[in-house]
């Protein structure tokens, strides 16, 4: 069917789709998100297609390459519906056996089941796995059910029904619903979307723009990527509803050029939405028209900042401007512009479909709904997790994330990307929402969550993020350009044992000015890592300064490697030492020539007897 001309046609079209899909047909969903793709998911999906063909099962089984299921640690993931059996770490060569035994005979192949590193238990169904069990996957959940290149998959799940409903409700009621739901911007600021929409709608103008910010640049963050790759129509539908409410006929998705799969799926989705009549003129017969263009970003972190992003779309250098006049009043091309990020837009159809009363029951009072976090770093279950706001850091890191690998000890968690703060173990019971994180000197940001263990040096962490940000600063304003560079210099001095108490004092003075005086949020929040580590891990800074010692054994200038009496003389470290500075014969205690050691740590990594000491 081509163009859908009115809401009634949409309902019947969906019913037709659902009727054809229910019944005995099985679906094998192969996660083909970027993470699983890297471990060969496309080949696995193809192997399933070939095997199903070979066995003559094509009519009974659908192979569906889907977007990211979130559990990247265990890719390639294969989820079999309707049984909900989840196989992890599937390789193409495993496929014939899976089809033969599990698909045809219903036998469970234990070796592909998820085995919990904490309890040792094996789980068959996705929902039984702790990683999934504690999540509330309102947005991400659909990723496992949809082939992002097929709009029918989305429509079959009720897609674009929220749009139809919004068109019937009219802009006033839609706005009221979004305001009552108190949807807060998931891009970092947490500003209420409804309020933003209202200001933009009320601004005097003949033209208004809608923008989706998909310039996700935080190191280790990939939630927006996964939503765009796995369920692009949810974002598009949210944008159309926003455009209808605000009175816009033109929208942009500003997406990183480094996200080719997201661009591809979005392009396909836009084409299909146009064919079906959800975009273009006279959407669903209402006379309302809207279309979306894709603008690819050129790799500047600062272009995630709204004014820099708009300058970039205009073809100018991506540099922020002062926002004394907000972009909702004068944004892209000087016209009122409403910008929200990917996840915020993806929340909108849910709010309209199920209503503000339903939405506000999830999460906390001040921050309703769910939030997707990319849980990475020193944690057992890395991946994307979507939880109701208000879940504690402990629940996210330990219950869902499975705790710290290799018996390590939790030390800190950095939330909110490079400009977030590092929170210590004492804050593990903090209920995570926009406001609680701000109060602790960190932030929600776009949802990055980097877990650090006891082998992480907090001075080194501050140094790392300052290095990232000084490079990504656009350089327009003095405080950010010079300030971050100087902060990096000062922290480096401490990391290299050249720092004094005055250095710490100067860091604190300078950080206050960078925060107070910078032009955009990149500068004002860039001091969070150094400030929060100074606040919560001051002792570690003092050890570097006073004792010239790096307690975590990370800062190279301050550490020495030594082989202890536990050495069995196995020769492994000697062979692997890139500098050849380990001496000693077989079954004889080895010795490192510390004058020539480059402190790469390989000896420590390869030693099976825990005989390398770092001090």
């Amino acid at each position, binding site marked *: 069917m081509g163009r859908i001309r009115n809401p009634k046609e949409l309902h019947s079209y969906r019913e037709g789709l659902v009727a054809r899909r229910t019944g005995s047909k099985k679906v094998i969903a192969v996660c083909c998100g970027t993470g699983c793709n890297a471990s060969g998911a496309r080949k696995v999906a193809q192997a399933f297609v070939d095997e199903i063909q070979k066995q003559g099962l094509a009519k009974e089984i659908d192979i569906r390459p889907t977007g990211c299921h979130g559990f990247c640690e265990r890719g390639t993931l294969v989820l079999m519906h309707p049984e909900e059996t989840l196989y992890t770490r599937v390789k193409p060569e495993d496929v014939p056996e899976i089809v033969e035994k599990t698909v045809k005979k219903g036998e469970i192949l234990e070796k592909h089941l998820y085995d919990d590193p904490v309890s040792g238990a094996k789980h068959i169904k996705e929902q039984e796995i702790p990683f999934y069990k504690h999540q509330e996957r309102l947005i991400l959940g659909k990723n496992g059910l949809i082939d992002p290149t097929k709009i029918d998959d989305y429509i079959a799940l009720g897609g674009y029904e929220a749009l139809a409903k919004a068109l019937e409700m009219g802009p006033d009621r839609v706005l009221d619903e979004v305001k009552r739901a108190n949807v807060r911007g998931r891009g970092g600021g947490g500003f209420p979307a409804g309020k933003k929409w209202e200001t933009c709608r009320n601004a005097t103008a003949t033209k208004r723009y809608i923008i989706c910010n998909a310039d996700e640049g935080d190191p280790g963050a990939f939630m927006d990527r996964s939503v765009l790759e796995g369920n692009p129509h949810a974002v598009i539908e949210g944008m159309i509803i926003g455009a209808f409410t605000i009175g816009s006929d033109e929208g942009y998705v500003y997406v990183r050029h480094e996200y080719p799969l997201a661009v591809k799926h979005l392009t396909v989705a836009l084409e299909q939405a146009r064919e079906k009549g959800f975009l273009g003129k006279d959407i669903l017969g209402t006379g309302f028209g809207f279309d979306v263009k894709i603008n690819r970003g050129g790799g500047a972190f600062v272009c995630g900042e709204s004014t820099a992003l708009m300058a970039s779309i205009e073809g100018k250098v991506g540099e922020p401007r002062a926002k004394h006049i907000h972009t909702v009043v004068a944004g892209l091309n000087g016209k009122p512009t409403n910008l929200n990020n990917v996840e915020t837009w993806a929340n909108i159809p849910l709010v309209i479909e199920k209503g503000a009363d339903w939405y506000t029951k999830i999460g906390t009072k001040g921050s309703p709904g769910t939030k997707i976090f990319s849980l990475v770093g020193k944690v057992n279950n890395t991946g994307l997790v979507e939880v109701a706001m208000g879940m504690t850091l402990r629940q996210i890191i330990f219950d869902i994330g499975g705790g710290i690998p290799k018996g390590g000890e939790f030390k800190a968690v950095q939330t909110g990307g490079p400009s977030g703060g590092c929170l210590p173990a004492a804050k593990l019971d903090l209920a995570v929402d926009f406001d609680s994180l701000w109060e602790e000197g960190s932030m929600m940001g776009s949802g990055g969550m980097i877990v650090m263990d006891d082998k992480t040096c907090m001075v080194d962490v501050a140094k790392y993020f300052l290095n990232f940000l000084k490079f990504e600063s*656009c350089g*327009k304003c*003095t405080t950010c350009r*010079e300030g971050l560079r*100087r902060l990096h*210099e000062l922290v480096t001095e401490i990391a290299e044992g050249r720092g004094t108490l005055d250095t710490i004092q100067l860091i604190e003075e300078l950080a206050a000015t960078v925060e*107070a005086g910078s032009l955009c949020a990149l500068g004002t929040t860039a001091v969070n890592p150094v400030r929060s580590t100074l606040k919560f891990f001051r002792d570690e800074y003092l050890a570097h300064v006073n004792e010239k010692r790096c307690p975590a054994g990370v800062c190279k200038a301050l550490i020495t490697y030594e082989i202890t009496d536990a050495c069995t003389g196995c020769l492994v470290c000697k062979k692997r030492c890139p500098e050849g500075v380990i001496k000693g014969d077989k079954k004889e205690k080895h010795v490192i020539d510390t004058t020539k050691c480059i402190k790469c740590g390989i000896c420590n990594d390869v030693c099976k007897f825990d005989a390398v000491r770092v001090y």
Partner: protein
Amino acid sequence: MTVKFTINGEPVEAQSGQSVLDVARRYGFEIPSLCHHEAVTPYGACRLCLVEIAKGRRRKLTTSCNYEVLEGIEVITGSPAIRQHRAMVLELILAEAPDAEPVRELAKRYGVVISRFKTTRAVAGEGPRDCILCGLCARVCTEVVKADALAFNGRGDKRGVGTPYSEASAPCIGCASCASVCPTNRIVVKDTKDMREIWGREFALVRCDSCGAPVMTEAHRDHAVKLGPLPADYYKTCTACKRKSLSGRFAKVGS
């Protein structure tokens, strides 16, 4: 529209659309700045014009050059916190522009004689260390002269300003507007009898038909004629001679 508000508690009046910086200076309040010039759009790069602005219950530090006046706001131009931040900004600027006299003077007024930061980017012996990356040169070149010969390059701590690839720039017309707005007088212009040297290029000068004084570069004249509306003939004489001949004509009309 007239807007009423206060600066340091004193009531002031301004027209909407004016900046807090301009109004404050008109009333005699001192706010330092290095990247502001009336000829170009406010940019907010140097951060020295930071002031505190209270709007209703909200109070924040912000730059005054690009903040348009609003009814009822309360502006504080020099609280201890503001002075402290300005001193720190000056310390940052001074570190990379230790040879710039205006920066040194301003810094001294904020109690900064020596920066605690080492000069690292500007290399001693490779020309004067006095560019503060305010971008006035590039902004005037683009916005006013419309020649687009200068621009920022790089980003973050690698930011610079000048001609593309630091080579002689084809669109440069040698007008030297950049040099005239540079707050630290870093841009070197060498005028000889018939030639001007700037940004690594030489430009022939147009000399006044009546007195022989230099009027402008030939490239500047051609650029001005192209932009219009005045004909090439207009640029044959210098401003002083034009004034002289004009006053002569006025005198005739008067008699």
